[in-house]
């Protein structure tokens, strides 16, 4: 594949034509609506396939934007897919429905993965994904509640997200909705380096907030190196447990484990931490678990390679689904 560039002097539509293979296309197997999901939960293999769909969108967005955090988005892909396609009670047709579950991307730099999930669910047109980080577009570098439908609260400054989750959970309690609506925050290892996260962890227990799930996307890589080299945060699960939370550690790329942990967390009636061991750049062999990609867009060759690999994965998963009867939900 050849490198594609967006020419600022060419109208957006023509630009998109020039990067057709980078343009997101509607998924032939669209996300189930809320009622359908409540009737029959999507199967694990279906979710795995959708995670690939979102990963492909992320690569496309970043290749066009030439800016952003691809590897951080890919590490969170399975968690975000499990949430939007199965666990979250959300409805794009009534995004302000008071009893909806809340999703807060505490690690706001992974915005592309949330944008992909929102677009695939119809919160805004898929084409809008191509506007990521561009002037005049609604998709900002980090989630912006005032610009992007489906974003509950703006994030991007690490450490603030879990506190926002506590505030949202308390508001739900005051409105008598804490029995039904769960607040899911997705944190990074950087979030766990920020002291404020632990202020929030303390407050969640102190205020007896029953409906918070904090998922830590523990991918062990940050801007300057591995978390172990830069600032080792150690056993994050044990830390949350010591703060009084229910805390489990899982493989963040094992969709079955991710779904089970998320669904279990909402039955607990106490703050729940899920420390998900993940790999940065998951799904793209050239990036997986490798240092040096944080905050850098994929160069055209890498984007092309990544797309090829992910497309192949998607084909395989789609064939697998066609051949299977299901029953692993």
């Amino acid at each position, binding site marked *: 594949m050849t490198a594609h560039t967006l020419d600022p002097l060419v109208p957006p539509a023509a630009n998109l034509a020039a990067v057709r293979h980078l343009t997101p296309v509607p998924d032939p197997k669209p996300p189930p609506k809320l009622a359908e999901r409540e009737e029959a939960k999507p199967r694990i293999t279906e979710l795995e396939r959708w995670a690939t769909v979102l990963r492909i969108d992320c690569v496309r967005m970043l290749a066009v934007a030439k800016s952003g955090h691809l590897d951080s988005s890919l590490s969170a892909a399975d968690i975000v897919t499990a949430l939007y396609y199965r666990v979250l009670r959300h409805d794009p047709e009534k995004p302000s429905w008071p009893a909806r579950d*809340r999703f807060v991307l505490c690690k706001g730099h992974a915005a592309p993965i949330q944008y992909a999930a929102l677009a695939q669910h119809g919160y805004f047109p898929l084409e809008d994904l191509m506007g990521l980080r561009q002037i005049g577009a609604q998709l900002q570098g980090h989630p912006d*509640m*005032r610009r992007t439908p489906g974003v*509950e*609260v*703006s*994030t*991007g*400054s690490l*450490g*603030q*997200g879990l*506190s*926002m*989750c*506590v*505030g*949202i*959970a*308390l*508001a*739900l309690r*005051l*409105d008598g909705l804490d029995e039904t609506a769960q607040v899911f925050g997705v944190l990074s290892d950087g979030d766990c380096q920020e*002291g*404020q996260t632990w*202020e*929030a962890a*303390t*407050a969640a227990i*102190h*205020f007896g907030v029953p409906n918070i799930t904090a998922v830590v996307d523990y991918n062990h890589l940050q801007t300057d190196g591995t978390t172990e080299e830069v600032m080792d945060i150690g056993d994050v699960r044990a830390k949350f447990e010591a703060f009084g939370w229910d805390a489990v550690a899982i493989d963040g790329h094992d969709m079955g484990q991710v779904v089970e942990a998320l669904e279990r967390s909402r039955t607990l009636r106490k703050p729940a931490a899920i420390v998900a061991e993940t790999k940065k750049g998951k799904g793209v062999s050239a990036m997986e678990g490798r240092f040096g990609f944080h905050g850098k867009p994929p160069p055209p060759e890498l984007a092309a390679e990544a797309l090829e690999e992910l497309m192949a994965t998607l084909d395989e998963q789609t064939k697998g689904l066609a051949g299977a009867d299901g029953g692993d939900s």
Partner: protein
Amino acid sequence: MAPEAKTDPIATRHGYGDALADLGERHEEVVALDADLAVSTQAIKFGKRFPERFFNVGAAEANMMSMACGLAASGKVPYCSTFAIFAAGRAYDQVRLGIAHNELKVRIGASHGGVSLGEDGASHQMIEDVALMRALPRMTVVIPADYNQAYRATAESYERDEPMYMRFGRPATPIVYEEIPESLGTGVDVLREGKDITLIATGHMVWRAIEAAESLETEDGVEAEVVNVSIVKPLHSETILESLSKTGVAVTAEEHRVVGGLADAVRQVAAEQHPVPIFAVGMGDEFGVSGTGEACMEHFGLTARGIADRAREALVLKPIVSRPPLFGPEWT
């Protein structure tokens, strides 16, 4: 219920606390947060009446501001109380992204602003909060002059939608407004008319500016106009420009750094639309010190005498020929 106006000296933070508790009575969505200073900030009055809507987060101001963001994003109207030093300083980033950027209806009740908190000294004396909050896009900055205006500012804050930083003080200060005003209006009130010089003051410096005007009249025969700026941002420039065009010279007075505070706000308006000499009373390039509140104010010249002396210096530079101001768009 009709609020009761105070007549004896009392701290502005009491006006905040009383009005906040009354707001809680009228509006169910009002919630209050505090960071282990509820008695000092007077948020305790709300806390006692509405314990289920009161969240004391302990010494964790950053957490408090981000929690307020979450609460406001979910339809509540949070009032966050702590000392100005922690509200604007320690939690700046949380206020910036979670509250100002999101244009959320969060009210920050920042007590113990300035050096008049006294004994605790420089670590607690916040003298740059107005500069920080003025610089924040979309943030309204309110500094009431006395208890009665503080009560109104707090009550009225519920009616407005934009994020708001409200600065209150520790010491009991004399009453400037005999009644609880019906409104803050434009946030710029002419309290005393005069033709020779304009004294533009905010917060604790307003009653001192009135005293300064009285001494200028008796000692020098100078008729000073006194203007109270209770909404520092967005600054309603019209009244200020009208006064400047009448007097041709001004002194600003604030318990804050002269950089980024009221002095800069007024000078910004004047420089473009009606340049006249404007002298400033405020904190220079220095931190506060320990002492009683009043001793600290005297130490830094934040007194009626300080204002009057500055006015005498400014009058020397007063232009002989004046010209009308060029009215333009309001500065924010």
